[in-house]
């Protein structure tokens, strides 16, 4: 090739890991891979099913129906029970499916991790994106319920929706990536996840609002603030800031710990997977 053609080549060094960096620049270079992993998982999730994406709607609706039959009757937090439980469920499902799939993602994708390099964070983040996709489907079904029960929706609704989703997303990612990193070393995590999710459902204000005596402990649950803030957009109830702050801090701590623990250990995933 003649000299008028100049190659600008990226130079880099591969060496033992010294400090943890977030590698945001690298994540940006691989941004298309987020899309592909998310797209793959959504596609595969509903492949060869008769109802397809409708499952994303059936699941919360069926759960809502069961909860209403078993626990329903009285209003909760100024909302009819169906609206109360469905509003909690659609966000809770993001957390439960997201944590489950992110927590297992390193193990299920072990064959790729062992053979190809890319920033590992893409995988748990994609798992969270997949569960957010399900949320969008479920949210569309939730809207008619607000109209049917003629619920007064405040102007803050879009903002509270956003806040709720953001807290859900960061805590799902935080817990999910922490478990993913632990799972690759200690496969016990595989058995811990379903149990943990099941237990947490009862400790999250999805089925019932917990009594104030236990709230200080239960507020450590990051999903407490996500769901309560989301409901604030349509339930005209005063916010209990002391509990919310505990819960929001907990979401942020899970996010930071999950992210850093993942980054710290990811270099050895290929050896352990």
């Amino acid at each position, binding site marked *: 090739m003649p000299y008028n053609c100049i190659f600008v080549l*990226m*130079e880099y*060094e591969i*060496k033992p890991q010294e400090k943890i960096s977030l590698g945001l620049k690298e994540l940006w270079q691989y941004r*298309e891979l987020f899309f592909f992993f998310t797209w*793959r998982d959504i596609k595969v999730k509903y*492949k060869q099913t008769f109802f397809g994406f409708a499952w994303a709607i059936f699941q919360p609706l069926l759960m809502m129906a069961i909860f209403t039959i078993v626990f329903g009757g009285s209003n909760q937090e100024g909302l009819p029970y169906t609206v109360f439980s469905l509003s909690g469920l659609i966000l809770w499902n993001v957390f439960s499916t997201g944590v489950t799939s992110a927590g297992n993602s390193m193990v299920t994708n072990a*064959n790729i991790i*062992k053979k190809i390099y890319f920033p590992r964070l893409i995988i748990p983040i994609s798992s969270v994106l997949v569960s957010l996709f399900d949320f969008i489907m479920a949210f569309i079904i939730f809207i008619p319920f607000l109209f049917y029960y003629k619920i007064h929706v405040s102007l803050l609704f879009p903002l509270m929706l956003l806040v709720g989703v953001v807290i859900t997303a960061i805590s799902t990612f935080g817990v999910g990536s922490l478990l993913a990193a632990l799972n690759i070393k*200690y496969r016990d995590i595989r058995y811990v996840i379903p149990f943990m999710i099941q237990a947490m459902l009862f400790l999250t204000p999805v089925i019932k609002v917990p009594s104030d005596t236990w709230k200080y402990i239960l507020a450590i649950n990051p999903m407490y603030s996500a769901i309560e803030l989301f409901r604030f957009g349509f339930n005209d109830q005063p916010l209990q800031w002391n509990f919310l702050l505990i819960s929001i801090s907990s979401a942020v701590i899970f996010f930071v710990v999950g992210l850093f623990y993942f980054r710290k250990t990811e270099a050895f995933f290929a050896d352990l997977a």
Partner: protein
Amino acid sequence: MRDSLVSIFKKSTETYEEFYALNDVSFNVNQGESIGIIGKNGAGKSTLLKILSKITPPSSGSIIARGRIASLLEVGTGFHGELSGRENIFLNGSILGMKQKEIKARFDEIVDFSGTEKFLDTPLKHFSSGMQLRLAFAVAAFLEPEILIIDEVLAVGDAEFQKKCMGKMEDIGRSGRTILFVSHQIASIKQLCLKTIYLESGKMMMQGETNDVISKYLTKSGSQSQFSISDRSLQDTKGKELYFENIYFTDASGQRKTEFLHSEDIHVVFETAGINKLGFTLLVTVTNEQEDPIFSSETKIEGNKTVLKINKDFLKRGKFYITATIHIFSTKPEDKIERNISFTILDFDSEWAKYDTIHYSYSSFGSVIGNCEWLKY
């Protein structure tokens, strides 16, 4: 977790032996060079490639690279059976580091190369395994990184497709890209790489021109399969008038080795010790891996070194064993060494090598080339 819990209560008495899969290996590769990497199983080849492709970090030392590195440690990584051929091309390409634009631009070439256009919208799980491999290789082959790392991926598909793959690799090499190529197939290394690195137990044994390195590798790898007196107990030779001391293989120039090309003469050297007053006979039988005898040959022993020359282009590819007997008048053997020494014939280019496909099995054509003639009328 259990280990670390237990260790709280129990003082650790175990000591760990440090193991380095690679140590003290350094080399330079210039832009546009194709470098082969050879070595036995466990020599550290795959570890080297894993470090080069950033999959595992080195525990010390560093690698400086200029350009995008793409690695093909296994074809079809990330393929998903539920997705269609078309979808898998995009997914796999993207995992291998291609941009969506690049994949789109090369899509037709990839499909064409793999020959799967009819099934593009069929889920991959319905593809035959050969088709999956072809598609996987095609995606990888049309990657355009500056540095390409390949680990034995050519061992896929039928002979025709392998040839196509080698052709494509040569094109990549010629287009100014750098290739690092690991393979057990010496023929492919010879075809692709001008320079080769030879690793053994994590150490660099030699680097240089491919031909030199390969002949060193073949010589070296053979040094274990020979027979020598040190393998025998005293009991074994006691009371025998004449017995085997050493048995080994050399090429025509006297170089000891155990891997031969089909086009090389093989010298089997028998060194004997003892007294040969009675005029013993040496009987040699060559058997193949299935223990079928291929041929036998005998001669009177004179002196303490007897050499059997097996002509070139006589044995086909495979592993052959020697059974050697010292006897007299066809009576009870004086000494016998059975089937524990072997040599290997390599064949990359004979007229039979082309039959190494899924439709034929090379080994089904017998063990000898058999110099027959077709008479024309």
